[in-house]
């Protein structure tokens, strides 16, 4: 029986897959098929649940052989369903970042000016807005007050939330329909234009068949194959490189040695702090009340030290108590167990707990490989420059701690830094020259005609801000280059 034949196969339904699928279908391509590994959950099927059983139903917790867990989307709509909704444009400093040899990480055609129309397009699609202070929960307000005491600036975030009810369950998928995910925006348009989203389709390999591409996948236990003129690999930051590595092992020629290398979790480091007694009207502050991203971002150290910092809201007891470690700080428990620890947790939760997340222009210190069963693995590539990034981050945070009285709890040992990161960039990075990366500046895999890749893994380097908007804008630009070749000249 011959393989099913379509015009385009899109592997994955997150930002990097759904956006090209939408634009190709709207441009008149008749047979656009999106293959999604996960299921489709509509808003009514989402839950306010902290349970890992539920959370692992909306995100894929990829546990590496080095004991690091990374979160990736696993539903129709990918990470847009389960991640919080900070939507920043990348600052010029990030686009201009250069490697040790003085070469720009981003291809030359990527500048704030060139990206502006694409950013604008996705901002309109997602209804991105700048939050007013009145919508910032106290979890964010305490963060701003902490920074003000340290004479540091703090800005309000841009989010793709409507009139958010502030329940604190953003990462579980918004049950109140207030987050403008792909299911609220692009996917209905794609479907109206004829694109088909198939769930439960686990793509194993891709291979060339003459002028076409053959995509081999499992639907349940059944092995299937589909042929297409054009293929987008959009499995996200871990599954995209894994698919290319599996395909290479199965015989796909011409993929270079950069596949899986340069994996970058965006300098993400999560940790907690404890407000000093008498900081403000602490009794009326509850760390669990309000959206997960508490709506603020400080750029204060971005130019000097390469990192941004944002607060966390919606903090439940488990994530906080599990992060506490023994400490020599007199404000923190000497050890993270026993009666003293139990009393201490009672004394700080929920009125004094703060959550933090840093993002930054940090070098890669991991690579994506595949385990013997072909699933993605993440292995260390220790790099001194990454340690220096952490040194700077820690030094600045300690300065804030001294100035504000907020005691900082080191989240995890440094060797775990990035544990549970959700910013999974650069493992198939875009590059100006074929010898430096996996994808060309137009989103086509170097040397692989009509094989495109414009998801998180194509982002060449850390961004220092949440990547969703930039992944989306790059995807818009790549697909624009296919639909309107003239746009490639810009």
């Amino acid at each position, binding site marked *: 029986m011959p393989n099913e034949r379509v015009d385009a196969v899109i592997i994955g339904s997150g930002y990097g897959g759904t956006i090209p699928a939408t634009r190709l279908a709207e441009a008149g391509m008749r047979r656009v098929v999106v293959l999604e590994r996960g299921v489709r959950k509509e808003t009514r099927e989402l839950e306010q649940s902290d349970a890992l059983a539920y959370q692992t139903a909306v995100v894929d917790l990829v*546990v590496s052989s080095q004991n690091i867990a990374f979160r990736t989307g696993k539903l129709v709509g990918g990470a847009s369903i389960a991640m919080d909704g900070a939507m920043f444009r990348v600052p010029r400093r990030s686009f201009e970042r250069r490697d040790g040899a003085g070469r720009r990480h981003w291809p030359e055609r990527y500048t704030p000016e060139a990206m502006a129309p694409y950013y604008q397009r996705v901002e309109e699609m997602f209804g991105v807005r700048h939050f007013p202070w009145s919508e910032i929960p106290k979890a964010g307000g305490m963060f701003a007050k902490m920074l*003000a005491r340290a004479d540091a600036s703090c800005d309000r975030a841009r989010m793709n939330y409507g009139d958010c009810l502030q329940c604190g369950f953003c990462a579980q998928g918004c049950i109140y329909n207030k987050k403008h995910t792909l299911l609220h925006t692009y996917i209905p348009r794609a479907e109206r234009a004829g694109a088909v989203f198939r769930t439960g389709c686990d793509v194993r390999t891709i291979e060339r068949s003459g002028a076409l591409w053959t995509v081999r996948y499992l639907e349940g236990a059944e092995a299937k194959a589909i042929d297409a003129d054009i293929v987008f690999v959009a499995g996200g930051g871990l599954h995209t490189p894994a698919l290319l590595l599996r395909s290479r092992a199965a015989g796909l020629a011409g993929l270079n040695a950069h596949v899986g290398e340069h994996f970058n979790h965006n300098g993400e480091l999560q940790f907690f702090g404890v407000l000093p007694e008498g900081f403000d009207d602490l009794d009326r502050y509850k760390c669990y009340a309000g959206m997960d991203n508490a709506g603020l971002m400080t750029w204060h150290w971005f130019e000097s030290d390469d990192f941004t910092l944002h607060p966390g809201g919606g903090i439940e*007891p488990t994530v906080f108590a599990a992060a506490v470690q023994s400490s020599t700080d007199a404000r923190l428990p000497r050890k993270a167990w026993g009666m003293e620890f139990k009393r201490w947790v009672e004394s700080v939760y929920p009125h004094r707990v703060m959550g933090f997340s840093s993002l930054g222009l940090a070098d890669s210190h991991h690579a994506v490989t595949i385990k013997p069963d072909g699933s993605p693995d993440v292995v260390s590539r220790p790099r001194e420059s990454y340690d220096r990034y952490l040194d700077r981050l820690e030094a600045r945070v300690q300065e804030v701690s001294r100035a504000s009285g907020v005691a900082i709890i080191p989240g995890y040992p440094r060797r775990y830094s990035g544990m549970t990161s959700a910013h999974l960039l650069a493992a198939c990075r875009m590059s100006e020259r074929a010898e430096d990366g996996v994808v060309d500046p137009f989103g086509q895999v170097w040397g692989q005609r009509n094989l495109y890749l414009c998801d998180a893994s194509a982002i060449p380097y850390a961004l220092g801000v949440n990547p969703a908007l930039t992944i989306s804008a790059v995807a818009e630009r790549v697909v624009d280059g296919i639909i309107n070749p003239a746009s490639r000249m810009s």
Partner: protein
Amino acid sequence: MNTLSKQQRERRRLLQVFSALAAQFVQACGPRAVLSGDAGDHDGDVDASASDSGARHPTGLPTLGGAPDTLVGHAIATLCDTVIPGAHRDPTGAPGAVDAGVPALFFDRALPAAALVGLIRTVLDGVASEVGGRAFSRLTVEQRETALQMALDRLPEAEFAVQLVRLGYYASPVAARHLGYPGPNPGYRDDPDFSFGPDPLAREITTGTDGNFP
């Protein structure tokens, strides 16, 4: 037949994921003599003194929190009570790990943690023999604390067992109630304590643009 409540299933899954992490951590540390504990079947490992009905349980605990009444069950239950002390010895009466049923999670055979209980007991009893000349579960509370600290000092990887207790306890409905964490909610937007209001609380440096950094 599935007799577990949804909540029990969810907690089981939580432990499954985190004990998988912990197990991999142990494996990544490579072979060590101290980690050569028996991870096999402990069902026949019954402590005769425990069947002495009416007497105070030899562990000193009012309940084993779902752990089996075996020597390894005693080790795990007393470890849990050392990490998060139970109501029976807390002057405030606040519930702890045995009250929240954390020990049972270590013996759920669907969880990877079940394969580690023998190893945990071996480590604990090893330090306990130095501290008090007897099994960990037969030490006094103070001796258990000394022994656990000694285990953590010598073998930082033993932290995973402490971490499992913390996770098991603080993820429990017992702890949520005790700490005042409400969980699912209709949103706090209209709560008068939700925000500090419309005035800026810190200096903004992107004002005049749109929240993006240039």
